[in-house]
């Protein structure tokens, strides 16, 4: 099958803005999310969570809870078989099944406030809640480890006795909270710094932030008499959820059917499973359907946020504005179990630049906080907050305009990154060019205490496996099914690509996401991959349909297969001018018995760069930062549905504004979260943000038939450093910690 790009004049649907297939169901309230599943005889599951950040479980007595009328079953870790100590890639993160088991239901230790200890099923949510209070757990309280730098000291209490640092020079020989130490070296950093005229060095810190999807985690499990386990889940990866449940229950994948529901936001946080396995255990024990839905507090306490970090960075440059060397140390909180996004954080940190010499050391550090999960460009916003402020400061020191300095050091195709990879087609210079020419960058600010900042970012995206099947109906319409969970419109964008290849109207394609019994393996909807990779599977499936139809035509007309051509919905043969048949007529003749398969494993994908221009106004008396204007620029390769791309950009930027100014876990010294609700964990409201202008650049990625690149993650990377750079301009003070709350700002400018 040809992998060549589809010619632009064949774009019928791609690049247009059709109505989303799921829109009407969602605006009317009919779409069913994980939390909406209701089945006859449904029991309500709830999870008991640890009140301690670090403690050994001495005993658990569930007898009183079990005796409460209306309670059907209680489960604890002992109800699960032992799990393999094996780590696998899961989206942009990793999953170790032994740790996943302990994170689903703690066995010997609780490692954070909110760690699941037991689960129960009752006939009503209120009874379930009351029963939780009757479970007696005796804890031996241990010292909590909450600060990432403190955790790295060899004098600190370790979370896991068995963990040794997996380092660049092999494995450590004593227990450590540093699960992994990675190192990237390029060139000769020492020489690079000695060649520098100006060197800037700073430390930056960030705290954990939550993806804060509005729908909490929800799973409903049904255990059939035939041994089939059916789970309705608001997971972002149905097959990924099935794999986790299969591993934790040691139960065959063939007997587990995961039905993906509509998902009320995920952003990386719904790759790991939390409630699916407990729901399954409870369903098996009770013989009834069991639904476990987390409360908002449980979501904040018990699911994986993005990492808190401590980052030191040093960059040197010549007076003429050439970066000579960088050095950075990235300490990323993994939470209770290994697996922080320090790898992608280190990848992204200076990926937009051509750096001749550099060293990055990254540490994956265990602390008594929830095990982190992927959050939109995992690891990158933190490292960009540090990197893009240092770049800004260096430009100021040298006396160069920020765009000019970045342009002078911009990476391009073929540039070797610090992690050793070579950049494929990228558009950093084009993005900087757009910033430079944009009215927003050139119009003057119009008031006191205002500042303008810019920042850029790069994200590598992901490819991986997707499956699509297309069935052609006898009326010429087609049904497309895919294994991808549709988070923000991929049913539509995938269908658009199939419609283009089939050269039929988009309206004739009905696209659905299906359960794990109904299609072959598909990776999770993560890493900005779905429109691109599942779209490619749709292209392949559509081409398969056309190949099969061409075969039918050649049989029907007794002409050679090579002579059959298809264009604008009509099959013809070069052998006889008179013969032709439309797609729909052929479909009718074949009674709809034609299908096409697309199973792809995309190993060649492209990253995406982006940038942010932002204006802020700071109230120097209160420390409040107001974002006045914001422009986001991004290379989409090809915007399959420009409206969706704009939506991803605007949404990502506003999450970035939240991260910059409002959001962050607050802990007391014992590790209790002080703001586990949406009043004190502050998401930006419509009043806190401006309308973000989205500027899409289309520099195609040649290996994709449409030139498409992933777009979902890049937009969150550059807002926080852009805002910090704007605040610096407004106040003359560089803010080195996130979030930049009014309290932080007043402290930094010495007012309090």
């Amino acid at each position, binding site marked *: 099958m040809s992998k060549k790009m589809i010619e632009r004049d064949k774009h019928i649907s791609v690049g247009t803005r059709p109505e989303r297939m799921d829109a009407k169901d969602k605006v009317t309230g009919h779409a069913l999310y994980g939390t909406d599943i209701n089945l006859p005889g449904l029991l309500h599951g709830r999870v008991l969570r640890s009140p301690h950040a670090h403690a050994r479980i001495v005993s658990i007595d569930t007898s009183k809870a079990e005796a409460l009328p209306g309670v059907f079953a209680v489960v604890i870790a002992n109800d699960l078989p032992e799990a393999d100590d094996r780590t696998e890639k899961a989206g942009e993160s990793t999953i170790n099944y032994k740790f996943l088991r302990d994170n689903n239901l703690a066995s010997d230790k609780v490692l954070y406030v909110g760690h699941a200890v037991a689960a129960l099923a009752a006939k009503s949510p209120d009874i379930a809640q009351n029963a939780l209070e009757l479970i007696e757990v005796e804890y031996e309280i241990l010292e909590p480890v909450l600060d990432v730098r403190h955790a790295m000291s060899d004098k600190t209490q370790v979370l896991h006795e068995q963990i040794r640092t997996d380092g660049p020079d092999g494995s450590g020989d004593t227990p450590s909270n540093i699960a992994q130490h990675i190192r990237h070296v390029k060139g000769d950093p020492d020489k690079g710094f000695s060649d520098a005229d100006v060197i800037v060095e700073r430390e930056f810190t960030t705290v954990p932030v939550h993806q804060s999807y509005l729908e909490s985690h929800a799973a409903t499990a049904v255990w059939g008499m035939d041994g089939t386990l059916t789970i309705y889940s608001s997971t972002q990866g149905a097959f990924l959820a099935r794999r986790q449940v299969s591993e934790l229950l040691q139960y065959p994948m063939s007997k587990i059917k995961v039905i993906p529901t509509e998902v009320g936001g995920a952003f990386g946080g719904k790759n790991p499973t939390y409630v699916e396995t407990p729901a399954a255990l409870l369903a098996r024990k009770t013989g009834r359907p069991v639904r476990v839905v987390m409360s908002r507090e449980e979501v904040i306490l018990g699911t994986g946020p993005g990492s808190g970090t401590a980052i030191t960075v040093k960059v040197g440059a010549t007076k003429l504005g050439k970066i000579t060397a960088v050095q950075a140390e990235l300490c990323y909180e993994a939470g209770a179990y290994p697996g922080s996004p320090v790898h992608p954080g280190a990848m992204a940190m200076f990926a937009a630049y051509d750096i001749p010499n550099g060293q990055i050391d990254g540490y994956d550090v265990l602390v008594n906080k929830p095990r982190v999960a992927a959050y939109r460009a995992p690891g990158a916003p933190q490292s960009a907050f540090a990197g893009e402020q240092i770049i800004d400061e260096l430009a100021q020191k040298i006396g160069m305009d920020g765009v000019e300095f970045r342009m002078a050091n911009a990476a391009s195709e073929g540039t070797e990154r610090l992690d050793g990879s070579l950049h494929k087609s990228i558009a950093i210079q084009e993005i900087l060019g757009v910033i430079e020419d944009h009215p927003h960058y050139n119009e003057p600010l119009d008031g006191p205490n205002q500042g303008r900042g810019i920042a850029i970012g790069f994200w590598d995206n992901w490819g991986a496996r997707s499956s699509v099947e297309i069935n052609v109906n006898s009326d010429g319409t087609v049904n497309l099914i895919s294994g991808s969970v549709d988070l923000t419109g991929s049913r539509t964008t995938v269908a658009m690509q199939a419609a283009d290849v089939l050269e039929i109207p988009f309206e004739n394609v009905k696209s659905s996401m299906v359960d794990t019994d109904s299609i072959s393996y598909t990776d999770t909807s993560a890493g900005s991959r779905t429109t691109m990779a599942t779209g490619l599977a749709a292209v392949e499936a559509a081409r398969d349909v056309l190949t099969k139809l061409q075969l039918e035509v050649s049989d029907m007309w007794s002409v050679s297969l090579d002579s059959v051509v298809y264009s604008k919905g009509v099959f013809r043969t070069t052998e006889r001018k008179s013969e032709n048949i439309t797609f729909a007529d052929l479909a009718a003749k074949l009674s709809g018995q034609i299908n096409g398969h697309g199973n792809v494993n995309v190993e060649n994908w492209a990253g995406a760069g982006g940038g942010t221009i932002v204006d802020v106004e700071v109230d120097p008396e209160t420390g409040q930062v107001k974002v006045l204007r914001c422009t986001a620029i991004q290379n989409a390769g090809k915007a399959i549905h420009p409206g969706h791309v704009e939506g991803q950009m605007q949404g990502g930027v506003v999450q970035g504004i939240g991260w910059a100014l409002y959001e962050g876990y607050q802990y007391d010294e014992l590790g209790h979260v002080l703001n586990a609700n949406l009043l004190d964990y502050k998401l930006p409201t419509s009043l*806190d943000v401006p309308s973000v202008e989205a500027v899409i650049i289309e520099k195609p990625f040649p290996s994709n038939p449409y030139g498409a690149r992933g777009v979902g993650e890049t937009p969150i990377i550059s807002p926080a450093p852009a805002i910090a750079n704007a605040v610096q301009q407004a106040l003359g003070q560089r803010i080195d910690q996130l979030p930049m709350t009014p309290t932080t700002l007043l402290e930094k400018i010495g007012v309090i």
Partner: protein
Amino acid sequence: MKTFDYEAPVTIDQTITLMSKTRGKTLLLAGGTDLLVQLRYSNQDVDLVIDVKGIPELNQINYDEFSGLVIGAAAPCSQIYESAPVLENFPAIIDAATIIGGKAIQNRASFGGNLCNASPSGDAIGAMMSLGAICNVVGSEGVRNIPIEDFCIAPGKNALEKGEMLISIQIPSPRPNSGSHYLRFTPRAEMDIAVAGVGASIELDSDLNKILSARIALVAVAPTPVLATEVSESLVGQKTSGSLLEKAANIAKETISPITDVRGSASQRKHLIGVLTRRCLDIAVKRAVQVS
């Protein structure tokens, strides 16, 4: 939530009787925007919840120049800010009513509930305190009037005795040449809770340059919203000026010993009280000038 009995009486007498008859824990429900959240999170045992929204006296908003403004204890914020006499005469009340929660909350949350909830950060309490509100309370022993500054006695605790209920809040008519304002600081623009807040009402002389009387209430900087009498005293008899307001702001800062919590630090709150007092007084004075 634990289950409870529910009654919705339509008279004050019925309510008082219900309260006196019930042995266990009884709670009065108005808008429920605080109460239901508290019950849900504490999962506490409650025997009876009495919904008082059906009692006409608790839903009234009445104004006449002689007796002033009467706000029924269960009247929601939106009813308050949609009331023409309140809009015309009590700007600080409008300020508070329009910043509590969002539109959906404002259709439920009442000033009476805000007051009985006795949160240190009660915006409505600060606004009403600056206007010299009196709380009208009824119990089986009869009626009492409690000055608003004596109503909240600790975080979450009010001065109501067992069997008593808040009926309404009475706010005196504005004096000539007076203005009021309620101003708070929150990290987000709306849908947020005060890190610190200041309510102020100012009465000027007929020349509009001397302060005849002033009441300043400080919010979220003490166990309850507090009346800052030292600040008022520093203003009375003085000519309005930037430096006077600055001085008052400094006094406000000195009168408080706030705590550090998840919403702000002690030093931040102290600092903010200074900034907010100055800004709030400035607007109250401007409003006094405009009104006349």
